[in-house]
């Protein structure tokens, strides 16, 4: 075994971070590749984490800090794996690190550079709910707290205005350099862990539900950002107009479940959490959860759900989740659904939150081809054989953990990650 001390981890959500730290403690050298400019995955989008409503930052920030300071872990943000060759114990990996134009060491994260930038663009990390500049960190508290420049949008870099140098002038630390190129890195590793997580299903295709058509309709992740103190509204629960406070909200479970052909296993709890959030901020609002099944897969979850049912929301059963229709009239959203007697029923609300299905992370297909691994029929990474208690993929030396393998909550993601560490340690020490 030539490179038995080195491990490549792709994706820096809870699963990727846990494995990085454990392997580092055992003396392994880890390269953690993250496609975004910040580490932490989806969990840092959540203000609080069910079922104990732990503050997510308090859970994750110490882990992020530890990773960034760990001498055994090389964190490559804005990076993608582009080629892999070799076999278990001896892989050669090519990584493309996008130019960020800001020096990671020199930058202090003071934030003086973004206000001066004249460019406005949509902030995708904030679920498109707000704009950001061409030089940006996606949200307050991002780690590493170092901005990057979007070369396609920057006036200087895309050639629109070669004179623009505003951010460079604003930076007192000389951290910005508008000359830069993508870096191609070659590393050799003994094992690879895929921890690329999930993305949310695009539900604009479910035209009956009105997402993208009616401004009052939100996705679950949009709502997470709306509630977050570091989010686009600084945690104020207002609608897209920036001022209207909703007085009635319906949360719809199982959106896209029929299309994806599996239960996403986190959305019942996430939707209960959303009802809890709403009640917390809007004492008098009418809150409804419209469900077709309730899936609470942890010993601690039912208690939380019962509590939400008792104090925060009215749970309404719909007998056919494919028959729901949402329309808008005079600014009110009208939900038509089949009730428990399979009769049409109606509900008028200001706001609708759609708990949409979890899907394989965007780009999983390409990554799968680069790695030479199999996916299941849903597009998640397939664990072999028969998916019975294993994190081993179809390719020896390549492992999977967290939502990259299928939808699951934080603790189940971490358990898989720790299991993958066992496999990696066994492989590297053999």
């Amino acid at each position, binding site marked *: 075994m030539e490179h038995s001390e080195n491990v490549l981890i792709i994706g820096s959500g*809870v699963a990727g971070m846990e494995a990085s730290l*454990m*392997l580092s*403690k*055992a003396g392994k050298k880890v390269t953690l590749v993250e496609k975004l400019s910040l580490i932490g995955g989806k969990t840092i989008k959540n203000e609080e*984490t069910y079922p*104990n409503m732990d503050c997510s930052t308090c859970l994750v920030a110490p*882990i992020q*800090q530890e990773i960034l*300071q760990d001498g055994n872990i090389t964190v490559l943000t804005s990076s993608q794996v582009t080629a892999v060759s070799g076999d278990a114990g001896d892989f050669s990996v090519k990584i493309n690190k996008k130019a960020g134009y800001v020096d990671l*060491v020199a930058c*202090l994260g*003071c934030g003086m550079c973004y206000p001066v930038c004249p460019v406005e663009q949509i902030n995708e990390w904030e679920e498109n709910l707000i704009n950001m500049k061409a030089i940006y960190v996606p949200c307050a508290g991002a780690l590493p707290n170092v901005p990057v420049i979007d070369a396609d949008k920057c006036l200087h870099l895309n050639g629109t205005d070669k004179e623009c140098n505003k951010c460079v002038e604003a930076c007192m630390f000389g951290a910005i350099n508008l000359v830069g190129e993508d870096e191609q890195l070659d590393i050799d590793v003994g094992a690879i862990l895929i921890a690329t997580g999930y993305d949310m299903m695009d539900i604009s295709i479910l035209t009956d539900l009105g997402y993208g058509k009616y401004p009052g309709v939100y996705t679950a992740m949009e709502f997470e950002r709306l509630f977050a103190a570091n989010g686009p509204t600084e945690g104020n629960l207002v609608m897209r107009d920036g001022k209207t406070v909703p007085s009635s909200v319906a949360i719809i479970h199982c959106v896209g*479940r029929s299309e994806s*052909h*599996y*239960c996403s*296993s986190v959305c019942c709890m996430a939707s209960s959490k959303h009802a809890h959030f709403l009640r917390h901020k809007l004492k008098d609002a009418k809150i409804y959860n419209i469900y077709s*099944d309730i*899936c*609470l*897969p*942890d*010993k*601690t*979850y*039912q*208690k939380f759900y019962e509590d939400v049912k008792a104090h925060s929301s009215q749970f309404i*059963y719909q*007998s056919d989740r494919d028959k729901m229709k949402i329309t808008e009239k005079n600014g009110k959203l009208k939900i038509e659904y089949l009730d*428990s007697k*399979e009769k049409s029923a109606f509900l008028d609300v200001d706001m609708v939150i759609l708990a949409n299905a979890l899907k394989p992370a965007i780009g999983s297909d390409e990554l799968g081809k680069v790695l030479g691994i199999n996916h*299941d029929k*849903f597009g*998640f990474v397939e664990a072999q*054989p*028969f*998916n*019975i*208690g*294993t*994190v081993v993929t179809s390719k020896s030396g390549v492992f999977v953990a967290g939502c990259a393998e*299928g*939808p*699951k909550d*934080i*603790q*189940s993601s*971490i*358990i*898989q*990650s*720790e*299991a*993958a*560490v*066992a*496999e990696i*340690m*066994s492989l590297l020490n053999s």
Partner: protein
Amino acid sequence: MSDKIGIYVCECGPNIASKVDIDKIMEEISNLEDFKDVELVVRNHKLLCSVEGKKFLENEINENNLTHLVCAACSPRDHDTTFINVCKKTELNPYMYQIVNIREQCAWIIPDKEEATEKAIRIIHAGMDRVLYQQPLEEKQLDSNPDVLIIGGGIAGMEAALKLASRDRLIYLIEKTDELGGKSAKLNQLLPRQGVNLNILHQKLSNIKSNKYIKVFTNTELASIVGFLGNFEIVIKDVKDPENTTELLAGAVIVATGYELLDATTLDKYEISEEDEVYNALEIEEMISKNGKIVMKNGKEPQKVAVIHCVGRSEVGYCSQTCCSYLLKISKMLKEQSSKIEVVELFKHLCLPNKQDEAFFEQVKDKDVEFIRIKDVNVTGTSIELTDISDAKQKLDVDMIILGTAMIPAKETKYLAEELKVELDEMGFYQEAHLKINPISTNTDGVFVVGGAHGPTGISESMLQAQAAAGKIFTQLIPGQKIIPEVKVSEILEAYCTGCKTCLDVCGFGAIYFDEDKGISVVNEAICRGCGNCVGSCPSGSIRTRHFTNPQLYQEVKEALR
């Protein structure tokens, strides 16, 4: 050697420099009345945490032969470790250094420059007072034993044993019954996504038999255990002959004692007895193992069977997660036995959290199994009264009822938890160190909980948890490597301790034991985490936590509040 304190004020670029008066700080700190007999080196730097700044600090420590160091900079969350690492490169013991946060606590929160400067001077002064009372601490290295004790020989325990066993790591697997396999060995089939057959289980059983690094003890239970990560002293006993004990040494413990099924006869809504054709699903699995098929007590095949979900769920207060899928499997087995058997599943919700189980549900529905979504159900013998989701009442008389009863903690859980100093959660399962981010570990370092012992789980999840425990052990307990316990731990001063035992209950980590001979409490430094809980609890003030002693804290607070 006389004291020589180095005080380094970081400007953090303009972050600190533009909001406080650096020159004034330097001036006042250099001329403090109560430090006029102490040698001081007071310097500022543009960016102490930069590569160049760290080099500067290292040189300063060496060239000035500093005995104490104070860095007035940012939050310890940002750069405490940075400066500790600088100390480690020099002769200066890192516990002789103190960080003072003049950025978040002064520059960034006090708009008035003069006020911010005043506060900065005051807290730097406090840091100097404190640092003089600090003492060098040394890390200890303890030998550790890489071997592992696994309690419970079900699928979780077996999986952990197989993952961990190797030439340099022996596994002791103890099982209280006379056979390995646990509940899984009683099953006839697994789920479609698990490949249906039980080959995987049989394979594991034979792998364990042939693995010379796994020592299996059947009919065996834990008698006692003391120790800590790396060094546990264990006594096991023969279930049938409790006087017959064996002593073992191990570095870690995995608890894999599984679950039990709730007794449905204890439930108000179930008026059933032994004579009735009412079985829990595990009894059905055992029946198939014995008779090859599902039959009534009279040996005949039932014509109509009701399968009831969520039995006892509201009583225990949680969903057992596995029963929806294994009850689908039971219906499938009934239909495979004879397509003529009428099967109706009475369920409240379908909980199918695995991505592949929805397809299984569709498959069972296609086998002509009827599904009724219920709100409530009452069972008397094999007569069922139900209220369905639309509030319609219905009576159902069937030949046989199969129950999906709640999974509950195994019997000895409480006893084992006390022995192992692991807490139980409100449901009676072992409590994890942190539900979300440390789900396999417990409050006791070196003790892990996996499988049904942890809470309701299927075989796949139990195996993953077992592997996770193996991952933890592979990275925490490396053969031949020493263990370095926390340095900032508590100690009990023998002369002051009155032996009241108050601290014993306060310590959540079981780090304090009572020395009967001396009549005093003693902290086991290898277990103590330095949380300080015991310090406040001791009525005679005989406990102190290193690096956080009363004089150290007093010095700091005295100046800060003056």
